[in-house]
């Protein structure tokens, strides 16, 4: 019989952790379903761009995606912006506690009404500030033109720091930094290194101020139409792919940071606990600003899970 074809589209290169995890998922899923399922991966925005892939998924033009969690706000799932709350997560463990716990389940279930089934969260990394000006204290951010990806949450905390956020597509960033259209950006070490930003940024400060991750989602109608045992096999395969992704993402970030240091072109700045605290304090008002979108209860639920206490700052 003809195999069931699942079109899996994403917007990053094949050699990134997400790209590798997608390929790994394809491999194990096809093996375990013994060829009854064929997964076609379209990397690099070949089929759909960042801006259109969610609508395409809802229309059924593509079956599976792994968009950044920041992309869910505009489609009416504003709760997903909780991932952009600055400094709410101190480690991957805290992220996983939330993502795999009740809050994460609630988030994924909230997609049902939009014709989408949420399956898993995949790590990308923690964003850190970089610029051509030395950034140590939050005050250093004032007046800096910072490239961000389109997100209300990120826009809010960048403004909170007095910088001027500039939405720009990923492909334009290198040149914008090189020429000075923007002064800096926030990126995980892995993104920073693979986009060769160390060639055009003098300083990279380990602020680790916000978490960047993806949600793996499928078209609900398509997913519910799959035979039950296949769905089970795929779900298990995805759990394994998630573990695989999170492992290589963490490793990739560590290695990338080491490589950036090794090039010697970018000075990597580590923050003392006191300095980090001043960053947390400076960015905390952004939580309040994002409250009416995410919901106070949900934010408090995240605080409880991660042990974040705003009053101690």
């Amino acid at each position, binding site marked *: 019989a003809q195999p069931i074809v699942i079109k899996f589209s994403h917007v990053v290169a094949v050699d990134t952790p997400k790209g590798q995890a997608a390929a790994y998922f394809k491999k194990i899923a096809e093996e375990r379903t013994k060829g009854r399922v064929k997964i076609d991966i379209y990397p690099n925005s070949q089929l759909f761009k960042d801006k259109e892939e969610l609508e395409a998924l809802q*229309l059924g033009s593509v079956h599976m995606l792994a968009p950044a969690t920041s992309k869910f706000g505009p489609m009416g799932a504003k709760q997903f912006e909780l991932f952009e709350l600055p400094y709410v997560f101190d480690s991957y463990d805290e992220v996983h506690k939330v993502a795999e716990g009740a809050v994460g389940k609630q988030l994924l279930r909230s997609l049902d009404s939009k014709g989408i089934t949420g399956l898993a969260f995949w790590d990308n990394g923690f964003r850190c500030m970089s610029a051509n000006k030395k950034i140590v204290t939050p005050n250093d951010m004032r007046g*800096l*033109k910072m490239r961000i990806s389109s997100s209300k949450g990120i826009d809010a905390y960048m403004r909170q720091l007095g910088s001027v956020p500039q939405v720009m597509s990923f492909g334009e960033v290198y040149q914008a930094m090189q020429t000075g259209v923007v002064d800096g950006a926030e990126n995980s070490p892995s993104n920073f290194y693979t986009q060769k930003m160390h060639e055009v940024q003098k300083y990279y400060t380990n602020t680790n101020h916000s978490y960047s991750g993806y949600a793996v989602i499928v078209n609900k109608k398509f997913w519910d139409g799959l035979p039950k045992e296949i769905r089970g096999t795929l779900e298990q395969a995805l759990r394994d792919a998630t573990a695989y992704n999170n492992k290589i993402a963490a490793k990739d970030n560590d290695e990338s940071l080491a490589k950036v240091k090794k090039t010697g072109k970018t000075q990597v700045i580590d923050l003392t606990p006191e300095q980090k605290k001043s960053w947390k304090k400076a960015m905390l008002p952004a939580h309040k600003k994002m409250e009416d979108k995410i919901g106070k209860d949900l934010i408090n639920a995240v605080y409880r899970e991660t042990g974040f206490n705003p009053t101690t700052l």
Partner: protein
Amino acid sequence: MILTLLDRLEEWLITFLIGAATLIIFVAVVHRFGCSVPVPAIQDLLIPINMSWAQELCIYMFVWMAKFGAAYGVRTGIHVGVDVLINRLPGKTRNKFIIFGLLAGALFTGIVGTLGSNFVWHIAHTEQVSAELEIPIWMVYLAIPCGSYLMCFRFLQVTWSFICTGQLPHHDHSHVDGIEEETIPPDVNWLEMDDNLHPHDLKHKKLGNGSKEGGGK
């Protein structure tokens, strides 16, 4: 009367959109430039102003301009095709191809208009908003059905007038305002003007290549 109003409305809309989009980006660039000027007074004034919406608005204005401008373009005959082959055909056969092409345009834009309406209807039932301005996305996407249906109408209009009068709108790329006609050298051979390569209206027979179309000089 209503048609003239529609024509003017279409022209005013796209004129406004291209002009306003240019101004918006100009202001956004000046704003960003001002923010990085190391004068605290100016910075205090400018940094709190949020211009993040400028790019998105500019893009949406241009998409609307593109959709309605494409309809206007049917009226001005600016959409180019590979007409080398059909222009070698005898007049009557050529006219059939021209009508076929125009009707194909009407068919395509009609289908797209309908698909677009369905699509907008579908999206209007979601809570999708645009990323920066947070306007309901279906309003933005309305450009597709509206623009396409208008374009379909324009194709039918041009087909009808071609059947009735034999005239096609023709965009003249070499026309420049302000360059007076007197500057054309006196030794011009006016009969060589016709290049026999564009679909032109039948009334231009007098300008040459007449034999193929059965018209005399």
